[in-house]
């Protein structure tokens, strides 16, 4: 039987429209054989949580370059908890200052990928984490 494909939601929360990174990651994960859903721009945490539930994803990848991560990411994680979706792996990519990383991880972000990360490192991380859960 074919292995179940890993399902990933790539989302751009907040007002920022810079989607180069989100689109590259979406394509790299898809090229690696995963099922990728891209939300498009300007998603509120509520919209992302609903899309994640509806699409039954294993992983949510957030791309934030605007400095709004400390507000938006904890809101999303809280919503996932309320929906009983705490098992979904939340990843964050973007310009995240070192000083914020510990708190975001404590809030429940599985990993934070900074500018310059190879797409292959992200593919590897997603595979390992999704496999651990399966």
């Amino acid at each position, binding site marked *: 039987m074919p292995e179940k494909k890993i399902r990933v939601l790539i989302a751009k929360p907040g007002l920022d429209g810079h989607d180069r990174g989100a689109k590259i990651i979406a394509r790299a994960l898809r090229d690696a054989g995963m099922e990728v859903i891209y939300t498009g721009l300007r998603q509120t945490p509520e919209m992302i949580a609903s899309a994640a539930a509806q699409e039954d994803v294993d992983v949510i990848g957030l791309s934030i370059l605007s400095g*709004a991560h400390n507000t938006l990411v904890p809101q999303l994680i809280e919503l996932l908890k309320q929906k009983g979706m705490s098992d979904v792996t939340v990843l964050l990519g973007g310009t995240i200052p070192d000083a914020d990383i510990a708190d975001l991880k404590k809030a429940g972000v599985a990993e934070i990928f900074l500018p310059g990360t190879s*797409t292959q490192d992200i593919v590897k991380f997603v595979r390992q984490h999704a496999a651990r859960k399966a």
Partner: protein
Amino acid sequence: MSDPGKPANHDKTSRGTAPEKITERAAEFTTVSSHPIRRLYTPDDLSTWDPDRDLGVPGEPPYTRGIHPRMYRSRLWTMRQFAGFGSAQDTNQRFRYLLSQGQAGLSVAFDLPTLMGYDSDDALSEGEVGKCGVAISSLADMEALFDQIPLGDVSTSMTINAPAAVIWAMYLAVAEKQGVDWKLLNGTLQNDILKEYIAQKEYIYPPKPSMRLVIDTFEFGLRNTPRFNPISISGYHIREAGSTAIQELAFTLRDGIEYVEWGIRRGLEVDSFAPRLSFFFNAHNDFFEEIAKYRAARRIWYKTMTERFGAKSARSTALRFHAQTAGCSLTAQQPYNNVVRTALQALAAVMGGAQSLHTNSLDEAWALPTEFAATLALRTQQILAHETGVANIADPFGGSYFVETLTNEAEAAALDYIRKIDDMGGMIAAIERGYAQREIADAAYRYQTAVDRKEKIIVGVNEFTGEEKPIEILRIGESVRAQQSGSLRKLRAERSGEELQRQLDALRKAARGSENLMPHIYAAVKAYATLGEICAAMRDVFGTHEEASVT
């Protein structure tokens, strides 16, 4: 159109050949945009190139060598550092500091809520107020932003697009309060909505009503602000989104063509508004490719304006541009390396004949710059201008076999794209079918794949890496939103609600018709309608744009 010439086979000619047995570092050499670079360029590459026709002299058609006869010998480029963060008061202080340090012009960066037409106290603004630029929600904020800065003495560039008409109306209202004649105002609105759909994605309304607003500012500016550039047609963001240099060149110039067509369709005489169209390009890492891009841009624009639009005025045909070093080339790792990258990119912009320049700060892969980093970036330009000697001469690469060939190739490839977009029915049609967006996404992915495979090296990222200590970065707290919400509450309580409704209703009514909206927007601004209220009034009539995402 120039013929790029037949590539010479240098293994078979007597000129400067390298024997086959000498091995090279790579199987193929390409620019950062993956444009192939041959081993050597010789007169054979320029066999159809005519220096009188294709090069000319600075200040004369086709302006390949620059738009002024003396270039930087008569006037240096304008050092224009983009700045804005936190509240209007915070940014006002940074502006006054930059002016005191010898900066010639102001350039305002707005925060994301402002760019999207939302007030600071809107629910959607949470977490974003003052983060990526300054928060401006009303005329009161604009008054604070330019407090003690005489608008008749500075030139101000404003990076604002979807709500550009509203922000411009606020600026004009501040000028009026300061008693400055609008006819003396100098500056530039970015106001390039097409590149928002293509690349940066800070759009509000659908393309057609958005274009109407742009042409409204052209028309209003012609009558009222003859020295203000109503638009800066921007390739910068197209490149930052991952395009190649040629895509940046082609899509930007095709956007320019679209604006000219819309202006003419409005009934404006081409030579009345074309002289005020300005451009904005990226200054990326590949030194010669960038120089060729700027040279080709001027030559294409000259030919386009004269041949396609029959422009007669020299100022309609000479392409003026601002350049900014490539933000996307900055690395979060080993951030001090960014000073070097920026200096080299700035050098390319100067060699390419830029009219004004912004140099990025070393910490901008992390956040908005600290005052230290912003000052160092300005000093980089001052060193280029005053110490290196590069400002002594116009177009130093004119006549180089290599740079002339690259210029010809950039022109030919850009014209191919422009023809393709013409065939689709213009830029809006190309945007609606996702053509430009897909070309850029493909190029961005190709580049990332090359970096992942180490076919392209980024120092400190995929090669020459090492442990490092974090640098100090600028932090913007959440207090700006609270402060802004407080002042907005006060503003809403103090203004005349009746006058406000009257102006917003008049704006809605005018938006349903076809008259110029600038006078109505100006009247609403003067009644202290907020940015969010004015943009919402137009949203009621125009609706909003949703893109079909291309991944």
